[in-house]
């Protein structure tokens, strides 16, 4: 027991005396979390659109003022010129260019129907789709208002009326922060666990200091425990710290139980650290560790559903996710934080994660050779 205590002491000293590494581990990720949470939004606001009005009638002016009133668009009126359309789009001066044709009002009044041409820069297909939807909503509502209220229209229309109400469960404000923050916490903990463990162990290999430990009477299990325990503790502290920041700064919801949250974190950290140990069994240089982990980390993080929910992935990807450690933890943490899941709701994931942790840890320890 005393041996472990000394190793622990050495490890903690080594971690905490490194004046540059500590801020990098703790500060950079948190600063980034705080800042970049605001960047991750797909909400459309103030998109630049240009309108070319060939008609200059009261109806076309009404349409333009409807666009101007919309929070989604920043309208600039452009002198009608067909050649200007491609120029505006090529130079990124406008996301969309709307052409109101000549005779627009006349055609609407005579009920011949008029078509508005919309040119959208669609490189970002998703934004383009949204812009198109919002433009259509504005045009449609003008058409409905016009036909149902304007006495000039001498036809027998029956105005249909329906009201669409949207309700967003679990996240009424559609706050993307609440979705992304748990994801960032998961990434942080994984970084702490896997990356630091593997780098730390391989560093000893690379520098040759592992040989010195190998000739001491320290046993394998003592050495491994002493090496891994600090990262397990640091990981849990980081998680608590991140949670606190999320609560204080963003009022992140915490619907579930704290003990379940930390139980899941503790189990996941065993898995993350076990993976770090496993990688260090095979790699010889820190560079190898870094690229090996970087590769798997990218794949696992992206597939875990950090940006998009797992349900929208194809079946084969969901199958691959069975071996994705981050996937389980991501799902558990989000369910606890956002939906207030209890143990029974996430039992399958918890059991899978626990079994996974034990398997990886046992295999990694078994593979670890104190002597070459």
């Amino acid at each position: 027991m005393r041996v472990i205590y000394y190793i622990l002491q050495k490890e903690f000293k080594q971690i905490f005396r490194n004046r540059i590494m500590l801020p990098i581990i703790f500060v950079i990720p948190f600063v980034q979390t705080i800042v970049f949470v605001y960047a991750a939004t797909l909400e459309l606001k103030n998109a630049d659109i240009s309108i070319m009005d060939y008609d200059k009638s009261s109806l076309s002016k009404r349409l333009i003022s409807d666009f101007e009133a919309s929070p989604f668009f920043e309208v600039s009126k452009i002198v009608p010129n067909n050649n200007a359309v491609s120029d505006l789009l090529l130079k990124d001066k406008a996301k969309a260019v709307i052409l109101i044709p000549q005779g627009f009002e006349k055609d609407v009044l005579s009920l011949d129907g008029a078509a508005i041409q919309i040119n959208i820069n669609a490189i970002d297909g998703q934004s383009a789709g949204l812009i198109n939807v919002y433009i259509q909503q504005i045009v449609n509502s003008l058409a409905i208002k016009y036909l149902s209220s304007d006495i000039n229209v001498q036809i027998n229309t029956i105005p249909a009326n329906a009201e669409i109400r949207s309700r967003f469960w679990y996240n009424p404000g559609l706050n993307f922060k609440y979705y992304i923050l748990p994801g960032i916490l998961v990434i942080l903990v994984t970084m702490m666990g896997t990356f630091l463990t593997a780098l730390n162990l391989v560093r000893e290999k690379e520098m040759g200091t592992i040989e010195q430990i190998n000739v001491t009477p320290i046993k394998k299990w003592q050495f491994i425990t002493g090496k891994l325990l600090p990262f397990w503790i640091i990981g849990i502290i980081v998680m608590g710290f991140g949670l606190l920041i999320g609560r204080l700064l963003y009022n992140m919801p915490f619907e579930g139980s704290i003990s379940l949250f930390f139980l899941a974190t503790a189990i996941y950290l065993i898995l993350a650290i076990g993976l770090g140990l496993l990688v260090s069994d095979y790699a010889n240089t820190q560079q190898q560790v870094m690229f090996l982990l970087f590769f798997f980390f990218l794949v696992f993080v992206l597939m875990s559903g950090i940006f998009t929910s797992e349900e929208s992935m194809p079946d084969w990807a969901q199958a691959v996710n069975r071996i994705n450690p981050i996937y389980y933890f991501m799902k558990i943490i989000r369910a606890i934080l956002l939906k207030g899941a209890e143990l029974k709701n996430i039992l399958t994931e918890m059991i899978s994660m626990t079994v996974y942790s034990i398997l990886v840890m046992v295999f990694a320890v078994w593979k670890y050779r104190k002597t070459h």
Partner: protein
Amino acid sequence: MKRFRGFLIKEFIHIFRDVRTMMILFLIPIAQILIFGYVIKNEIHDANVAVLDLSKDNITKEISGRIDAAPDFVVSDYLNNYSDIKEYFSSGKGAEVIVFEPNFAENFYGQDNARVQLILDASDPNLSNLINNYTSAIIQTYIADQTMSNSPNAIITTEPRMWFNEGLKSSYMFVPGTMTLILMLITAMMTSISIVREKEIGTMEILLVSPLKPLQIILGKVTPYILLSIINAISIILLGNLIFHVPIIGSTILLLGVSILFIIMALMLGVFISSVTKTQQIAMFISMFALMLPTILLSGFIFPIENMPKVLQWLSYIVPAKYYLIAIKNIMLKGVGVAFIWKEILVLMGMTFFFLILSVKKFKLYI
């Protein structure tokens, strides 16, 4: 010159003999492109939605039918009670329930408003927002059509034309985006690590007492990585083109030229990082933490910069990846020439020189 050649050969051997790292370097872009192409889809296609029809009349059936027929949605379930909604969301079968309130058709043409509720599982807010918008649009179009059904033609129609990307394919975003991310991260990370490694192990001292000049050492260190990164860039472009049909409308030579400029910029950034760090771990964490998120988030790779708060928009001006991404999207997708992207090219050149001068200065100090 002969000395330099010898050094260069040593560097190449150093890098290429580590087969494991080599394989990973080439696998990263391929895996990432495939994941973005097949797994991460922010676009909705055949999304499952459920209908809770408390009215069950012709109009609600027609609206449901329209939603089902739209390419974005499939009506997969019909619920019977409000209480089923929670169960439906927990099961994760779909993210939206469309609720038609009783007497829908009656109210539709009557005095009262006919009410339709869209209830969304917003635990993924972006996705639920998209679904909400698309469903509302379908229903609104239906209402407009009914209002105008007595007139010979629909009175006002829109003719949308999607420029540069008619099919609204997401590959047009993620292929250039992935290329930017990979070139930036791998190049900066590899360079900084391999230089710091020599420092950490102590072999840098040996290099410094050799007759090689500092600039030659830097050049020898970065040249192999230029080659590696160019291979990566070409493989991403080919993958994007062959599998995801992302065109290269503009000049291929210009595209390669800008890419090489960006690679050199990233290399210089890597050299700069290596000149301010002492251990590989720190170099790695700086090039990963400090570069990865800004490159993903502030370059316009996934999230449009215009939608961000002003402060972040200003911050994005110092993110090199932003300029490269604008330039290559313009070349590949719009097919424009230098006349449209000279500003971006100039900024990238400026950044390259900035890091070059900074790191040469630091490097001399180190000696």
